[in-house]
């Protein structure tokens, strides 16, 4: 936390090293979140860049008593939801290359197929339910943190998560997963 604050102060003053250090520290987190929300690697890479540019430009407005991680997530949520709203092509890339040779090709393919089903099912959820699942299940955030990021109450996060999981199970059941 304190290291973050020091880096933020230096970044506001214009230190390129501080900006690079901040990006290096959070880039994997931001990219993973963007990918979970967008479900496309290339788009997630672009979105990651966009999120960081918005964050760095808005550093002056960051309240230092708050958590930088939570603040960054909030920006990421806004950018991802805006992107999803404007995105025309909702097709999911199923042609990702299969890597690794420890498992058999067939089992890898089955696993990939399963993953794709889950990703597609997540795509079908309403944005807030999807967001609650991503933040709670994948990002490992508590209800309190998720509520701060989503800008709603903890009860609302629990409800979005609960209904999201329920719907996801129904979708996967329909597809025979």
């Amino acid at each position: 936390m304190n290291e973050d604050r020091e880096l933020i102060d230096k970044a506001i003053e214009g230190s390129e090293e501080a900006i690079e250090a901040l990006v290096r520290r959070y880039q994997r987190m931001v990219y993973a979140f963007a990918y979970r929300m967008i479900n496309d690697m290339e788009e997630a890479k672009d979105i990651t860049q966009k999120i960081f540019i918005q964050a760095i430009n808005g550093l002056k407005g960051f309240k230092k008593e708050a958590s930088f991680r939570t603040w960054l997530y909030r920006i990421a949520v806004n950018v991802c939801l805006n992107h999803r709203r404007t995105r025309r092509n909702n097709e999911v890339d199923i042609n990702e290359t299969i890597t690794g040779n420890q498992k058999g090709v067939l089992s890898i393919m089955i696993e990939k197929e399963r993953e794709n089903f889950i990703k597609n099912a997540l795509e079908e959820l309403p944005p807030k339910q999807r967001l609650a699942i991503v933040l709670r299940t994948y990002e490992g955030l508590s209800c309190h943190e998720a509520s701060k990021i989503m800008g709603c109450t903890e009860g609302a996060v629990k409800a979005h998560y609960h209904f999201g999981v329920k719907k996801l199970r129904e979708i996967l059941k329909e597809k025979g997963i």
Partner: protein
Amino acid sequence: MKYTHDEIREMLPDYLNGILEKTICTDIETHLKGCPECKDEVSFISELQKTKVPEPGELFWNTLPQKLSRIVAEKRQRRGLFDWLLRPAPAMVSVLLFMALVLSYLYIKSTDTNGIDPLFEDPLAYSSIEINDITEEDVLAFLAEEIGSESTEIYLEDTDPYSYYMDFASLSSAEIKSLYEALEREQTKGG
């Protein structure tokens, strides 16, 4: 048992992410042994968590920080030229300076008479003039006095009660029509 079924169910993602205290984890594990619903939920969340995020590659991770700091620096440099205007103090000074310039220009313009004498030497005397007392002759005499010079002539035809404008004004519409027809006839047949 400290926690209810619903409370434990809500804590399952935190449990799987390992962010709960040991004592709470023990309570959850005890509950899981006797609750097939929660057990099912745990396996479902675990299944969800198995979906991987594709790795964009080391090149992306290594170049992104420099790329972003360069973009931000370029943007700041472009904005730097006019950035001082966005700061409150310089912006206020600029606005005040501009207002002072405009006001001084308006003041100079209003006081500049270009050598023309004011109509009334004593401005207070203006209020004592009774408009009803002013006659047409007074106006003409005033104009002749103020504007009249060798090069200036005042045309008084419009005010002459015997001018031909007054003759036309006294005609009825039927008379004007017949006059118009007579003029037209004259024009077609030749004078």
